[in-house]
């Protein structure tokens, strides 16, 4: 048993060290998209083109968002429509802290302090919103969370210190594909373990039958608030990753469209499946970008039409989502 605990710690340490090493190597090749903004395109000497590079980073951020929503929507059965709000809190918190207080600190400090503060800030606000709105059921909860996320966005829009409507620029870029990829894997691992533990069982029980769960001595409100806070924390961290890989933030990124995008990722992949959340995020990030190639051929912008048709087709042909209730082997509970 102790052996297993040490193994887990080792895995996590390996993740952290691996992220730092990859960060270092990739930054030597000036592969970070932030660096590309300031350099002439001709000087780029990377393995992947900066375009694919940034698509991959966005995909990782989306996967983190999607799995954190899976915790709410898929496991606890809470229909929330305000995930972009928590991402925004995380993004702006981390960007402000690093820009205003730690502009010259080493990368590791920026990374740790930035993402941790982002997560905590989102979790605190998630707690306040959760306590006040989680007594609502179903669609009502969706409406309230949608409202809160728009409030968050409008408040950020009106803070001049973070750029207001102009957006926040010159955010230190220290994250690159390697580190984001590893941190994404870490997030998936954490959510998988929460699902397989006592808390995850209680969440699933509440989703399946709230009355029966209550009769088993489970406090539904407490579990809902817990999962809301955890999901907010992770969404905040995803926001921080987003901010420090893009280098620029605008409140326009965090409208309710973003929240719906994340819900769509969950639904396309299969509600209640962690693998589905990952797959859905991957597909819905890559699909609109991949369709740019099609636009070159057709000459007209059919991207959004094809994108929408694909989603409709998936919903007609596989209403339970691509993965349904199943999981990939490495994510299944046994």
């Amino acid at each position, binding site marked *: 048993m102790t052996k297993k*605990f040490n193994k887990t710690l080792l895995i996590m340490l390996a993740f952290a060290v691996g992220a730092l090493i990859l960060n270092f190597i990739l930054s030597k090749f000036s592969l970070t998209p932030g660096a590309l903004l300031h350099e002439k395109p001709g000087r780029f000497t990377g393995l992947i083109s900066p375009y694919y590079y940034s698509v991959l980073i966005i995909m990782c951020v989306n996967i983190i968002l999607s799995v954190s929503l899976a915790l709410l929507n898929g496991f606890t059965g809470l229909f929330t429509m305000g995930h972009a709000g928590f991402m925004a809190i995380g993004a702006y918190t981390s960007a402000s802290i690093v820009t205003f207080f730690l502009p010259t600190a080493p990368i590791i400090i920026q990374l740790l302090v930035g993402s941790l503060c982002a997560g905590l800030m989102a979790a605190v606000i998630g707690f306040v919103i959760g306590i006040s709105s989680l007594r609502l059921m179903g669609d009502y909860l969706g409406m309230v969370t949608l409202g809160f996320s728009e409030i968050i966005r409008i408040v950020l829009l009106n803070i001049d210190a973070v750029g207001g409507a102009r957006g926040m620029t010159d955010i230190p870029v220290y994250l690159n594909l390697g580190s984001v990829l590893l941190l994404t894997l870490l997030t998936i691992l954490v959510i998988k373990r929460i699902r397989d533990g006592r808390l995850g069982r209680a969440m699933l029980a509440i989703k*399946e039958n709230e009355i029966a769960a209550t009769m088993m*001595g489970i406090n539904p409100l407490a579990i809902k608030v817990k999962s809301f806070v955890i999901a907010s924390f992770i969404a905040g961290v995803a926001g921080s990753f987003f901010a420090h890989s893009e280098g620029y933030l605008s409140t326009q990124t965090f409208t309710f469209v973003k929240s719906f995008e994340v819900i769509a990722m969950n639904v396309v992949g299969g509600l209640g499946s962690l693998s589905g959340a990952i797959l859905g995020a991957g597909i819905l990030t890559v699909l609109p970008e991949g369709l740019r190639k099609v636009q070159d051929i057709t000459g007209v912008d059919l991207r959004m039409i094809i994108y929408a048709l694909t989603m409709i087709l998936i919903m007609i042909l596989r209403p339970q989502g691509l993965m349904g209730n199943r999981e990939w082997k490495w994510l299944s509970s046994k």
Partner: protein
Amino acid sequence: MAFLEINDMSLEFGGVKACQNVTMSLEPGILYGLIGPNGAGKSTIFNVLTGIYPPTHGDIKLRGESLVGKKPYEIAQKGIGRTFQNIRLFKDLTVLQNVMSSFYSSSKSNLIDMVFETKFFNEEEEAVRQKSLALLKVMGIEDLANVQAGALPYGKQRKLEIARALGLEPKLLLLDEPAAGLNPAETRELTDLIRKIQKDRNITVLLIEHDMGLVMKICEKIYVLVQGQLVCEGVAEIVQNDKRVIEAYLGVD
């Protein structure tokens, strides 16, 4: 002092009197039956006992402590387990997960334990797993542990519900029509199981059932509820010969 006391309890929904002045007192380690025609308010009594509906009047005391105003999950944690008339399993979870979920309030591993899979977490998980498997074995469905609960045949679902309620390690077990929808052979088997569980664990059982054969065979004391009022209580012979009970079930000449 009785183990569970229901004292002059009434429940009204607007003008509808679901229960009127119900007074019951349950002693520990005895198997009680609660019978009555459809709509008499039997399940309502269960819902009041488990805190789903707060009573309009009266008091309910578990070992001298009032349960009125307590949240349903708090009452469950005090050791009142129940099953449902219309089965309420966690259908998409496996049979084993269903039972394991009822150990939630008695286990203690926190978020850090879960994420790092600490020694404490692993030991606790294993203990819960073993206890759950033992409960499944008692109910005779341990070979179905990894099957999805919704895919079980009806009779097995009833058994699983009882196993799940036992995971709370209840002092009082409320069974709401456990034999409904079962064939005679299954009913006989379940009858023996209920009695065995009750004796082995020395728990108090309150059982709602329409199968009179089952009730008369195993219940040590029977309460009869008619239109929200208790009309009779006692051992099987007394109840069977009570005029009001016969009237309620068969009508008056």
